[in-house]
């Protein structure tokens, strides 16, 4: 090494060492969810001027309930994406879980039994995905794409392509859980709030969360440090499937009926919500608040277009636009930082 490059290195070291640690506010403004939150506020202010209905209690209630389901699923998806994985099967899994819950309750079983049957199916699907990806080293994209087809097909087979709209003895309770509210807040939103708190805690304060980020950051380093990489990977797919299962359970209660088409193509919206919320598909970067905030922005766009009288056909256009914009924004902010 020449003296010149050595002094150059020393200079770089000194420059880096001279940098101050970031304040709390500085580090906050560096996160994607913060900027998406700002975008939400701006959109909210604009819409409150454009439409008198926007801030009405009814509309806010609808927005909150609608985005809650995607928010719940985006939490789980965020964990998967954090390990540099992806799960395309969540939409189909919703259909399968919903049908299982519906059929079990229709047969006269209790709500609790229906709930556990549905979550059991979700657990099984997540476990299958996770084991194939972690232990058989298959690509997450391929495994979950296969599961997308399999789960939807199973939902069709066991439902015999019929709608379920009777839920046995606990029907009333079930419809309240999905469609009712407590303290003026829709029940699915309560579920989302609790789950977001749990994920926030897990990402920041649990060993599991730390390991999920480590696996996504550098899987080799994680393995050398003695982290059970395979088990961590299985766990994120299981957690994600359980989130999708729970969202399906709540959604069927809200709809009051279920067909095997439940959750069709939702996986794209869920992935988009997680990514808009700052989850990096390369792994290692994710925010617990990101999923719900991303889902909220998407629902807000949908709602705004509706209220502004722009045709529903434009909806996906704007969702796509914001997805690309969000990732672009992140790129720009990351420049010159490395």
């Amino acid at each position, binding site marked *: 090494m020449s003296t010149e490059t*050595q*002094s150059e*290195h*020393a200079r*770089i*070291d000194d420059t*880096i*060492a001279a*940098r101050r*640690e970031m304040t709390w506010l500085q580090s906050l403004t560096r996160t994607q969810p913060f900027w998406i939150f700002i975008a939400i506020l701006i959109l909210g202010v604009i819409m409150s001027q454009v439409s008198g209905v926007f801030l009405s209690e009814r509309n806010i209630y609808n927005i909150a309930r609608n985005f809650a389901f995607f928010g719940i699923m985006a939490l789980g998806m965020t964990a998967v994406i954090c390990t540099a994985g992806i799960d395309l099967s969540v939409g189909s899994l919703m259909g399968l879980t919903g049908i299982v819950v519906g059929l079990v309750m229709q047969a006269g079983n209790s709500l609790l039994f229906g709930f556990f049957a549905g979550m059991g199916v979700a657990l099984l699907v997540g476990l299958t995905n996770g084991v194939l990806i972690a232990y058989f080293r298959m690509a997450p994209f391929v495994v979950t794409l296969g599961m997308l087809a399999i789960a939807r097909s199973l939902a069709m087979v066991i439902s015999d392509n019929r709608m379920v709209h009777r839920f046995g003895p606990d029907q009333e309770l079930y419809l309240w859980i999905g469609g009712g509210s407590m303290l003026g807040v829709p029940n699915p939103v309560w579920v989302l709030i609790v789950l977001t708190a749990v994920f926030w*805690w897990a990402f*920041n*304060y*649990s*060993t599991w969360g*730390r390991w999920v*980020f*480590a696996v*996504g*950051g*550098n899987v*080799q*380093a*994680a*393995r*050398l*440090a*003695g*982290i059970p990489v395979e088990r961590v990977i299985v766990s994120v797919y299981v957690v994600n499937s359980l989130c999708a299962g729970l969202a399906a359970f709540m959604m069927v209660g809200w709809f009051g009926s279920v067909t095997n088409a439940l959750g069709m193509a939702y996986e794209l919206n869920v992935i988009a919500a997680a990514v808009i919320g700052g989850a990096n598909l390369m792994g*290692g*970067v994710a925010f617990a608040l990101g999923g719900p905030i991303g889902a909220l922005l998407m629902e807000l766009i949908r709602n705004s277009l509706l209220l502004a009288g722009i045709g529903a056909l434009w909806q996906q256009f704007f969702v796509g636009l914001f997805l690309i914009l969000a990732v672009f924004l992140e790129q720009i902010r990351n420049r010159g*930082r*490395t």
Partner: protein
Amino acid sequence: MPVLHVRGVSKSFGAIQALGHVDLTLDRGEAIGLMGDNGAGKSTLMKIIAGNFPPTEGAILIDDEEVRFTRPVEAREKGIEIVYQDLALCDNLSAAANVFLGREIKKRFGPIRWLDHRSMYRRSGELFAELKSETRPRDLVRQMSGGQRQAVAIARTRLSDPKIVLMDEPTAAISVRQVKEVLDLIHRLKETDHAVILVSHRMPDVFEVCDRVAVLRRGSKVADKPIGDTSPEEVTGLITGAIERA
């Protein structure tokens, strides 16, 4: 009694023999420089001692007890710590998170356990101070210089009180000032009765901190002598093959 005894170790990968009947001993408080050209078998030997894979033949003894590792964690449990050449750090995590990766400090309340960030920040801050490094515990590794990353990797080995520290090219990618810091650290490890294996291409480093130098060539040990009985010229000759054996 040597703390580490490598006894007749061979390693083959298919038809290729990477190591052939290598013997090596190491005492407490001793540093040995392991030298050799690329492909001489240094990395293979290091990886066997570090537990990445077991040898095809021969045995590794620690404190006269035969050990057989199949995973790096098992080596760590027996008191062997490794600083990897590529440093094996997670860029997306903080310095403290990397130091404690896989052995996080936790607080406990009933069945609930959570990460004790404060203790980990404090302890890694102390470790960096011991290493006289400017590294700050809360900084992301992504934003760090080569020297700071090195400090994080070395701080990892200081968490436990290891018997043996393996260092794979620890001075390859850092500035002069920090090379001195790393070498000082090796001196400090020796003073506190740790055994050090230093794999390095840098002759001055080996001659400054090591007590002995072992040279590998094409999978065999061709020299193993006290640093005072040899010279950089002789070692260079041994590495290249200009001198057959010493």
